[in-house]
């Protein structure tokens, strides 16, 4: 075994500034529903980060089974930024090894403007069709798209046009009843930002930037995100 030269040792990879404050009390692990899965828990994750086992933590399933709900962080007596540490562990995972569809969704969103790749013409057709359907119940109702000067810009969770389109009626009914001025957009309407989950700040910012661009272009006053 090589001696460890302290001045030349590798820097900690994971963000999260205060794992060294950990008192090892186990409050984080004690309050977490996934403690024990894979023999892991948040207390061990903090110890790993502190002991230089960053890469082992990054390669483990734990940062992805943890939902980053932040209950541990809320309970931590030393207020250690555990959410940041977990998200950073995800960010260090190679992109092609991000579990499931999350990273594919991010790539799809950057390419097509939504996570599931619904083409613009299909989307506009669907909105119009749904608008006609709802107008049978609510006379005069139609879905405003790219309406300049609308008060509220509404983004859409792509799972709704993809699989549960009639769930969009709930908000639409409320707007109708309140006689609200609102609009959605024909492009970059995705309200779900999976870069948040995959630790991908750059993609996340780009998706937000596009929404803000719509918001400014249409001179809206409020922004509604469904997620």
């Amino acid at each position, binding site marked *: 075994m090589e001696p460890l030269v302290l001045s030349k040792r590798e820097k900690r990879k994971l963000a999260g500034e205060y794992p060294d404050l950990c008192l090892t009390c186990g409050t984080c692990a004690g309050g977490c*529903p*996934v403690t024990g*899965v894979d023999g892991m828990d948040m207390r061990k994750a903090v110890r790993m980060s502190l002991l230089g086992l960053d890469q082992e933590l990054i390669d483990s*399933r734990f940062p*992805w*089974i*943890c*939902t*980053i*709900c*932040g*209950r541990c*962080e*809320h*309970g931590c007596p030393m207020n250690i930024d555990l*959410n940041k540490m*977990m998200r950073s562990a995800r960010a260090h995972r190679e992109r092609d090894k991000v*579990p*499931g*569809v*999350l990273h594919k*969704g991010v790539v799809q969103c950057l390419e097509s403007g939504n996570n599931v790749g619904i083409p613009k013409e299909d989307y506009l057709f669907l909105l119009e069709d749904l608008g006609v359907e709802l107008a049978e*119940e*609510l*006379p005069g109702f139609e879905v405003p798209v790219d309406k300049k000067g609308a008060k509220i810009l509404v983004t859409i*969770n792509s*799972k709704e046009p993809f699989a549960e389109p009639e*769930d969009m*009626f*709930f*908000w639409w*009914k*409320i707007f*109708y*009843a*309140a*006689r*609200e001025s609102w609009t959605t957009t024909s492009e970059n309407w995705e309200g*779900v930002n*999976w870069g*948040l*989950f*995959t630790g991908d700040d750059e993609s996340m910012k780009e998706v937000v930037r596009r929404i803000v661009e719509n918001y400014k272009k249409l001179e809206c006053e409020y922004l509604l995100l*469904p*997620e």
Partner: protein
Amino acid sequence: MKEYIETGRIKIDKSKHPELTTYHDPCNYARKSERTFGHGYYEEPRWIVQQCVDNYVDMYPNRANNYCCGAGGGAWAAPYAEERIYYGRVKAKQIKDTGAELLVAPCHNCRDQIMKSLRKEFDMMYLEVKYLWELVADSLVIEGVDDKEE
């Protein structure tokens, strides 16, 4: 939405939801919002729910100490279904312990996990799950539309 109700822009009929109702605090609107923006949305959604229902009960623990639905942080879209369901057992027990028949969740992710997964896995098919805005939409009295029906 709170403003719509407060200022009377929308009218609500409480009789449409007589059943015992509980509310799930999602991590993003509650704990994380408090930490990131200095304000956790604990009371606003509870107020809205209670404008729509008379019969309300909180889960325990709740607000900042509430348990996650089990599908947060992208877990709903991740391939670890078994772990996600195992995670959700705590949430399922919390919900059952209230005796509620209607659960209101203001987050897509939490709603899907509870409605499409936990109900089935933990024998709670009696439970109805609604978005917060769904509860409001289903409680609306729309002038010029509902008047005619009456």
